[in-house]
């Protein structure tokens, strides 16, 4: 039964519809036309207001969102914001970052620039063959919800009276994806690990209690392609991934195609990937230029891996690294690295790791509240 107000509203809509100068949908897509894009870029170029003490500096991009949008510029700006004045006059604070992983190329001395690194093609084709030989993960009857467990890292910095404190806060994420595209992610922060002690004030600011945040969304397109719709033919897969990445990119931030592919692969790593799709992903990368082999490594979960990378070349000469299990072909880690200082980041040493994702577990479950075994 409609209320009087609801009836009024419905009558008004019927009458006003004919005279609508801009009917619904008539300006769809304006946000990403040339004027919409220019407006967006002009706005985000404005300085951000000062952050509050102990502000968390999370990874700059949830992997399933914003692939490729002004990555280097956004990171530099956000890093500057993370240097927060708590009280008094602050001097420059040095941001501590996680240790770089060691990459080993047999017979070659590190570090190497992108032009000195070998192509990753042979390694990726080998990893693709390995992945294709793997049995499909068993999907128990009644389970159609994909589940992925990841460990990620974010940084907290507080500055006061010329001192600063930095803490690395581990974050454990559980991601559920259903066949209809609905999505639930639970982010749980662990205890901050103080890696740069300052004053009592700044230490307290970065040592905030663990937090829990639940994200959910019903729009599949907003979070990247659903893997069950992705073709396993490498040529078709490449075209699909590039097409699906397009809504999240702006022309003025045009980056090389391998960059978009790395971003998208890291994003869909939050869904359960079949061995066939995994193999196809590595074949897609194997056919791309500017994808280099960094060598063997041990990832942040202590697992042996093979590392491939691509460089953006923008401010900070940003590098994306994917670490792949040589025994199964599965994706283990993603690392984001500034090879050089993009601007005014007070990081002591470069290359500097500015974010990472460790893929710990994937499987199937029955509800969006139940982890997979």
């Amino acid at each position, binding site marked *: 039964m409609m209320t*009087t*107000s*609801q009836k*009024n*509203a419905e*009558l*008004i*809509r*019927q*009458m*006003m*519809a*004919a*005279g*609508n*100068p*801009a009917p*619904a949908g*008539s*300006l*769809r*897509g*304006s*946000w*990403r036309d040339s*004027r*919409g894009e220019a*407006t*967006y870029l*002009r*706005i*985000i170029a*404005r300085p*951000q*207001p000062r952050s509050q003490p102990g502000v968390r*500096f*999370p990874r*700059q*991009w*949830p992997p399933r*969102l*914003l692939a490729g*949008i002004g990555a280097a510029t*956004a990171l530099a*700006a*956000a890093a500057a*914001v993370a240097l927060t004045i708590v009280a008094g006059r602050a001097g420059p604070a040095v941001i501590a970052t996680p240790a770089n992983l060691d990459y080993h190329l047999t017979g070659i001395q590190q570090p190497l620039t992108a032009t000195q690194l070998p192509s990753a093609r042979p390694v990726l084709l080998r990893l693709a063959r390995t992945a294709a030989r793997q049995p499909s993960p068993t999907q128990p009857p009644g389970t159609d919800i994909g589940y992925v467990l990841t460990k990620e890292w974010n940084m907290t910095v507080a500055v006061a009276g010329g001192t600063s404190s930095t803490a690395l806060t581990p974050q454990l994420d559980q991601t559920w994806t259903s066949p209809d595209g609905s999505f639930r992610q639970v982010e749980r922060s662990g205890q901050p690990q103080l890696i740069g002690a300052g004053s009592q004030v700044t230490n307290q600011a970065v040592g905030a209690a663990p937090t829990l945040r639940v*994200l959910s969304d019903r729009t599949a397109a*907003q979070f990247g392609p659903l893997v069950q719709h992705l073709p396993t033919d490498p040529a078709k897969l490449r075209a699909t991934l590039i097409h699906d990445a397009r809504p999240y990119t702006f022309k003025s931030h045009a980056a090389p195609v391998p960059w978009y592919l790395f971003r998208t692969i890291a994003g869909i790593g939050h869904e359960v990937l079949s061995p066939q799709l995994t193999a196809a992903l590595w074949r897609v990368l194997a056919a791309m230029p500017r994808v280099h082999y960094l060598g063997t490594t041990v990832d942040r979960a202590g697992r042996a891996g093979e590392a491939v990378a691509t460089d953006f070349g923008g401010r900070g000469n940003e590098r994306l690294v994917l670490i792949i299990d040589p025994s199964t072909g599965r994706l283990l880690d993603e690392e984001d690295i500034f090879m050089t200082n993009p601007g005014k980041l007070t990081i002591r040493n470069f290359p500097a790791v500015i974010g990472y994702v460790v893929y710990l577990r994937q499987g199937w479950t029955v509800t969006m509240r139940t982890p997979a075994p």
Partner: protein
Amino acid sequence: MDRQATFTQLYREHYDSVLCYAARRTDADTARDIAAETFLVAWRRLAAVPQDPRFVRPWLYGVARRVLSNAERSRRRELLAAHLQNQHSAPDHVRDLADSVAGQMQLDQALQRLTERDREVLRLIGWEELDICEAALAMGCTRAAMAVRLHRARRRLALALQATEQPSAAAAVGGK
């Protein structure tokens, strides 16, 4: 999600709606300016954007309404200044009229007989398709006040349509 990511999501989800809001009230170029200014306000005051996704769009409309109001005040001052100087003033591009369909023109004429507040209530409900709560947020009043405003605006529109000789349309809005 960090600040820029939050803003980007906001922009992607709502820019088109805010642009439509502005385009229904002013010319195309000004509508773009209104939308840009609205999102600049949102960028500066991101913490003030409602957490409930249902109320984000009405909040943005409220900002756009104030931005548009400021822009129109500035334009009226410019037109007045030009008039006082006996200069030929440029046409006041309030908004583009729809194609010459009789009902549309008469609706527009009827709306012009109403106060701006009545017009805004009718547009928010009729064109932006907000519900009472959302429209109340956009106009900065209580839900009860919005319900009263809607009732009165509907009656005044019916009377205005009668005055423009559109009896069938007046009946559709239940004019009494």
